[in-house]
């Protein structure tokens, strides 16, 4: 037997031939011709083989664009249109079921409190939550997060990549989060706008990640002063499609750490991005931050595309050409949102027990309101603070527990009423159609409402005068 004779000659199942004819010119022996009959299954005209002159050179295999088009003889048995699964035989590589690779909780020894800025505290929280992958693009007033991570992560053999843009940043997170790693970014309003496309993809593909948006003055380039004018964006506008993500609004450096840790748990629990919104004031505020007594060493979830044998069968994808399939996917996503709404509402109620006037505020304005409340209580007024910690889902259930006694709602915010809109929407969904009268203290353009403005507003209310 000669070596030439050992080389396999081609065969083709007409159903898998699209009749492109690229093999015809590849054959030096003119074995291949275009057919003349339309294949009834495909509606295409497949090629015809006459192998009497074939020397098994194999060039036609490399000219055929179809994976199951021209194939070496001997593999015929592997192809049966009717029921391929029964004749394909064992695979050389079978993607196994992913093996469990769980997170572990690592106890930490006691340490003295840190004295750090809010942004720094969020970074420390992320590190303790097991985040070792941070991607970012510098933007004031969030740069300290990236700077700190660039310093700290190499000490932990982690990765900080400064991306070419926020668009690239969010897509790096799509890759690393899709690989099952805990990743995050620090950004500010204009940068967050650029990330929205990617966030929509992440929600669609169910990829977890944590975004810290230190909100600044807008619209457009605006300025670098503190504003809360991204509330609409994070609660209602996370890119295209039916999207939602849990949105957390810390108010102190300590809460920046605690919420950063919580965010990773929530992101992975729901396989969904989580957004932390802060303001420049909070990011810059130095305070005492106590460290937790445990940290997380994350595993790799079963769904991840990690790039190993165990996870080979997985896919990260937001594409579904079937309308029915995509609607089902949306239904499932909305079930997740419903679960978040039911289980993840968080709020801080400060002196609400007998409050007749209830201030609603989040982030630093909530802290300023606490200062104002102290002054007002010294004047004998019954004023409390309702502070949403989750802006989405809005913690309406906690609000309803105190709303009966309240004669006036005062919404304090550094935006044109975006928090108030969330409040009104939540009341409406809760069928509260006659809420207490509302008024507001609003500043915009990079200015927070001041303690004095809150005090003056409350003292000017008709309920008080």
């Amino acid at each position, binding site marked *: 037997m000669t070596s030439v004779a050992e080389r396999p000659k081609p065969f083709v199942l007409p159903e898998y031939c*699209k009749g*492109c*004819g*690229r093999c015809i*010119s590849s054959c030096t022996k003119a074995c291949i011709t275009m057919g003349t009959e339309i294949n009834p299954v*495909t509606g*295409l005209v497949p090629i015809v083989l006459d192998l009497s002159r074939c020397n098994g050179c194999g060039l036609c295999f*490399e000219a*055929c*664009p*179809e*994976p*199951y088009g021209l*194939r*070496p003889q001997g*593999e015929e048995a592997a*192809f049966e249109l009717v029921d*391929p699964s029964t004749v394909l035989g064992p695979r050389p*590589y079978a993607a196994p079921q992913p093996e469990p690779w769980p997170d572990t909780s*690592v106890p930490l*020894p006691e*340490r*003295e409190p*840190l*004295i750090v800025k809010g942004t720094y505290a969020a970074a*420390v929280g992320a590190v*303790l939550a097991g985040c*070792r992958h941070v991607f970012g693009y510098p933007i004031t007033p969030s740069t300290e997060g990236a700077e700190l991570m660039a310093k700290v992560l190499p*000490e*932990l053999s*982690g*990765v900080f*990549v400064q991306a*070419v*843009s926020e*668009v*690239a940043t969010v*897509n790096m*997170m799509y890759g*690393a989060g*899709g690989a099952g790693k805990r*990743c995050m970014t620090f950004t500010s309003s204009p940068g967050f706008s650029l990330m929205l*496309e*990617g966030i929509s993809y992440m929600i669609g593909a169910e990829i977890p990640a944590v975004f810290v948006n230190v909100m600044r003055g807008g619209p457009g380039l605006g300025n670098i*002063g503190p504003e809360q004018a991204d509330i609409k964006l994070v609660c209602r506008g996370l890119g295209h499609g039916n999207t939602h993500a849990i949105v957390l609004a810390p108010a102190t450096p300590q809460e920046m750490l605690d919420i950063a840790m919580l965010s990773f748990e929530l992101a992975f629990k729901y396989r969904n991005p989580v957004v932390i919104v802060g303001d420049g*004031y909070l990011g810059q*505020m*130095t*305070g*005492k931050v106590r*460290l937790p007594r445990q940290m997380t060493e994350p595993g790799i979830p079963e769904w991840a595309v*990690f*790039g*190993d044998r165990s996870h080979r069968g997985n*896919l990260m*994808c937001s594409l579904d050409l079937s309308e029915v399939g995509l609607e089902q996917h949306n239904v499932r996503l909305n079930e997740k949102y419903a679960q978040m709404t039911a289980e993840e509402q968080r709020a801080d109620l400060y002196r609400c027990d007998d409050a007749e006037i209830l201030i609603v505020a989040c982030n630093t304005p909530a802290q300023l*309101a606490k*200062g104002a409340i*102290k002054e007002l209580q010294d004047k004998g007024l019954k004023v409390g603070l309702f502070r949403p910690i989750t802006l989405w889902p809005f913690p309406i259930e906690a609000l309803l527990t105190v709303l009966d006694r309240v004669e006036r709602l005062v919404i304090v915010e550094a935006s044109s009423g975006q928090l108030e809109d969330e409040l009104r929407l939540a009341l409406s969904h809760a069928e509260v159609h006659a809420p207490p009268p509302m008024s507001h203290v609003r500043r915009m353009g990079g*200015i927070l409402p001041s303690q004095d403005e809150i005090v003056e507003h409350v003292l000017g209310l008709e309920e008080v005068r």
Partner: protein
Amino acid sequence: MSTSVFYRQFERHANGEGINAHSTTYCPGCGHGLVQKFLAEAIDELGVQDRTVLVSPVGCSVFSYYYFDVGNTQAAHGRAPAVAIGHKTANPDSIVICYQGDGDLASIGLAEIVSTAQLGIPVTVIFVNNAIYGMTGGQMAPTTLIGQRTTTTPKGRTTLAGQPLKMAELISGLDGPVFVERVALFDNRRRTHAKRSIKKALELQVAGTGFSFVEVLSECPVHLGLEPEAAEEWVSDNMVPIFPLGVKKDATEGIAFPVIPTATFDPATTLSAVGATTERPPRFAEDFPAHIDPEDISFKLAGSGGDGAQTAAMILTRSAINEGFDSTHIPSYGPESRGGTSYADVHVALKEVMSPAAPRPHVLVAFNTPSLAKFGPTVRPGGMVIYDSSVINGRVEGLADRVRTVAVPFTGVASELGAALVKNVVALGALQGATNVFPTETFLTAIRATLKQKCAMIPINEEAFKMGSKLASEQVG
């Protein structure tokens, strides 16, 4: 020829029913099928199927995950190289491949491909250039030839729409890539070579060498309006003169991309990296300084940028926290903070700071006249104003009832010490001497901790603090 890297049945393609289970979505004669076959064979021959992550683009090859039995990620339009960085850094052992068309890579994704190539991270990019937008229906691509008719250049591309973009040349001009080649598919010889080139590009990633890029001139018979064979000729006759074939860069000798680290979760290392310590700072204060306020004292330190108000405020905060109280410091924002001015608000609370702002401070430290004029009147009755008498002359006006003033020449004292920079520490000393908020040792401990990296500066700072303290306490009596 035959590879197990393709799924035995394309279950993601129309649920794997009928002929869809074994045929691609590509039009007859499309080059994508060939490139993907060569890629699958290379993955197979290198034995990296289990480790491979294929990043599918947006475009005709968006459905690559229907076919490749590897880890699959579908990326947003143009962003595959950024997604690839995410995957590669998440698992440096994975083999990450971006498969992109000309619209995806050379138009919308230019920033991502250029920056990833320049980074040089070991990922492999297969760039399929067929000079036209396929999936959207035959519009102009960045690589469309001059004169070529498309649906958005109905009379043929003119230079008014720019020249075709030569990506292999552009990428090869960067420092990051180790291997860049342009290949084609239009005859046996080119196909054999294309296969070899794709395998080499992948091999370089497996070896950890660096970023590799293969541009493949490909046929789109449908949108060229040509039979597949004629499309092959069109590529050969029209594309090759503009997009010359060949190796554009081969810098693989002796090069290796730095090892991407694998993260550590050792608790001690982690705590140390974030600056946590077991060292409990010594306490010197017997009690909360209730002689100023029973539970929450606010300070404002105001000056120009460079006066060091923020550093002084930081040391005050650290001192309070070291004594076991709560404290916050914020650099002031708002319209009044423009123009190089620098104001800091500090709270010291027995239990918890509520509002971090200091609209009515107990104590104002003013470094210049405008700061004193602006904030002097905000100091609450019974409070205190401490100011730099070296630069502030004349009467201090508009103060509330019972506000005491303490004049200390911050600048003068610092100059005498020969270090103008320490005037903020003189001010801090004056604050201590005038208010006795905490003992001197509390502040000196915090100053030493702040200057840990600049030990040589500690004596002069201690001296500055003590002089400020002395001058102030003499005035208060």
